[in-house]
């Protein structure tokens, strides 16, 4: 087996026993990137020398018995998470030459572990998209079929993990941006409870919804990454200060007697039959482990998508007001006064989808429309949170599809925003309510394309959600997913 094919937990054993070094692991991954990225475009920036330097340090830590579980493990970082001195673009022309003067909290914590940063993963511009086609740096291709999208917005992170050009990756999830691409690329991805991972150093899209999380080729790897990056942080006022890690140690959870809800709205119109069937098959696997699965209802699910687009666009229009060409980021040249500089810098620096969201946000926040749109969306948000709370009185967790379809052809939806937005219908309600959710593969559809299922738990039940995923993974044949061949055919 090639070094790039190992999972993080397998690498941990190999690195600790001294069977392999962090340096040779990093070299193997960099070679894999060189071999696959011309097809995939999963990385915006590859950190060659810097990664090797970090790997050298990791080898010293390993020798000294220091370092965390991820010491020497190569990680891909979504390009909206700041690494000091490393270009961080958000896949936008606006930040094409932005070199952050500080590390994100998650980056500090990964550094402390001794993990190795391979590079910055491609994404939709400012994380606004469901297909990674809005990147200023070109589209990302799905390793399972290069003519198809990898999902988005963390499409680069998901494609890299699926292809073995990262062992694990860090993404961000505002409405499904970790989970939906994980599903389309056939990997495991998790959005933790809102507040579990500090947003300090994550470039803001919609602050009340944004959350950092892992993508990996096993549930155990996700738990390992979470163990590293979950920590209270006073620099993010929404951080859960008493957040507990120890997820890997708590992976073994007995499914016997667990009550599993299957909200029928998630299996309804708009969800492909092959997806529905695969998730219902997964429910049978849970039943075979002694869980009790039952149909239930989340009646407001269909309104969640609407509320999401209003709330997230409003927050985005406010968050993105900071890009004015003054302190950092793109500045248009030759403006005769500061006003013209603002307008031209923003108009030339942002892409079409970002502008569309800023405009929608400005509209719903403007006088006369605020109550009808923004406030209404926030009220619906309350109702959706109540719906979930009622369900979790009855069920330990919910099981749903992660995406209504498998990966679609590049270009098929890019000119139809509403069809693109519908791609997030399974993932968005979770962000609205701030819940933890894990996505993992549960079968293949037509053309061998991966299908993902989603396990949703109540707030702060991240360990249970991971444990349920782990139990399924073991029961369904167990063990790690291996990287797919990147050739254009089926993986």
């Amino acid at each position, binding site marked *: 087996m090639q070094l790039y094919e190992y999972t993080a937990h397998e690498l941990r054993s190999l690195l600790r026993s001294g069977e392999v070094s962090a340096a040779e692991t990093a070299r193997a991954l960099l070679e894999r990137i060189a071999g696959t990225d011309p097809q995939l475009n999963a990385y915006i920036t590859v950190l060659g020398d810097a990664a090797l330097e970090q790997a050298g340090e990791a080898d010293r830590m390993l020798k000294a018995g220091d370092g965390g579980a991820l010491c020497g493990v190569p990680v891909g970082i979504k390009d909206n998470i700041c690494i000091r001195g490393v270009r961080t673009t958000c896949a936008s022309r606006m930040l094409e*030459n932005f*070199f*952050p*003067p*500080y590390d994100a909290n998650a980056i500090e914590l990964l550094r402390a572990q001794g993990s190795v940063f391979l590079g910055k993963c491609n994404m939709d511009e400012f994380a606004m998209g469901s297909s990674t086609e809005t990147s200023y740096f070109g589209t990302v291709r799905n390793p399972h079929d290069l003519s198809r999208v990898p999902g988005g917005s963390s499409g680069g992170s998901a494609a890299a993990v699926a292809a073995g050009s990262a062992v694990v990756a860090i993404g961000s999830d505002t409405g499904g941006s970790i989970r939906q691409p994980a599903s389309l690329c056939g990997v495991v991805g998790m959005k933790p409870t*809102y*507040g579990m991972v500090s947003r300090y150093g994550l470039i803001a899209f919609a602050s*009340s919804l944004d959350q950092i999380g892992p993508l990996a080729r096993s549930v155990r790897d996700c738990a390992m990454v979470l163990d590293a990056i979950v920590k209270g942080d*006073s620099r993010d*006022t*929404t951080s859960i200060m008493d957040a507990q890690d120890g997820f890997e140690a708590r992976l073994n959870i007995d499914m016997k007697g667990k009550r599993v809800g299957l909200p029928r709205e998630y299996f309804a119109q708009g969800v492909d039959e092959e997806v529905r069937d695969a998730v219902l098959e997964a429910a049978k696997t849970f039943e075979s482990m002694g869980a009790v699965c039952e149909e239930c209802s989340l009646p407001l699910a*269909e*309104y969640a998508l*609407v509320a999401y*687009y*209003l709330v997230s666009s409003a927050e985005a*229009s406010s968050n993105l*007001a900071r890009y*004015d*060409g*003054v*302190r*950092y*980021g*793109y*500045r248009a040249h030759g*403006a005769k*006064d*500061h006003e*013209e*500089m*603002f*307008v*031209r810098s*923003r*108009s030339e620096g942002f892409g079409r989808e970002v*502008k*569309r969201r*800023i*405009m*929608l946000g*400005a*509209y719903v926040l*403007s006088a006369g429309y605020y109550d009808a*749109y923004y*406030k*209404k*969306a*926030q*009220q*619906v*948000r*309350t*109702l959706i*949170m109540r719906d979930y709370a009622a369900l979790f009185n009855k069920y330990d967790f919910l099981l749903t599809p992660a995406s209504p379809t498998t990966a679609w052809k590049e270009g098929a939806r890019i000119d139809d*925003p*509403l069809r693109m*937005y519908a791609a997030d219908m399974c993932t968005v309600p979770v962000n609205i309510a*701030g819940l933890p959710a894990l996505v993992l593969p549960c079968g293949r559809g037509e053309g061998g394309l991966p299908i993902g299922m989603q396990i949703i738990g109540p*707030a702060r039940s991240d360990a249970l959600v991971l444990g349920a995923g782990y139990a399924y993974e073991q029961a369904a044949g167990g063990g790690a997913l291996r990287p797919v061949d990147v050739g254009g055919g089926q993986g």
Partner: protein
Amino acid sequence: MERKQVEELAKLAKLEFTPEELDRFAGDMGDILGFVDKLGELDTTGVPPAAHVSGAVNVLREDVPRPSMPREDVLMGAPERDESGFIIPRVI
């Protein structure tokens, strides 16, 4: 949505568009607003709006003085600067 309305909005958002882009946005925005009008079906009388999920209010910390980020770090990404600050086109 009317094209004129889109122009007004663009002004608020400090964005400018070509005439073709304006037409396209007017169409897109019309579609999107048609989609979001769906929320009107729900009765939300008396339901408190949720700004976020944690329930926390006014998270405060002790006002302890500490060093701020070094000036050179802050100026590192400036499109135009001198030794001590950002330079922008004239304001007055």
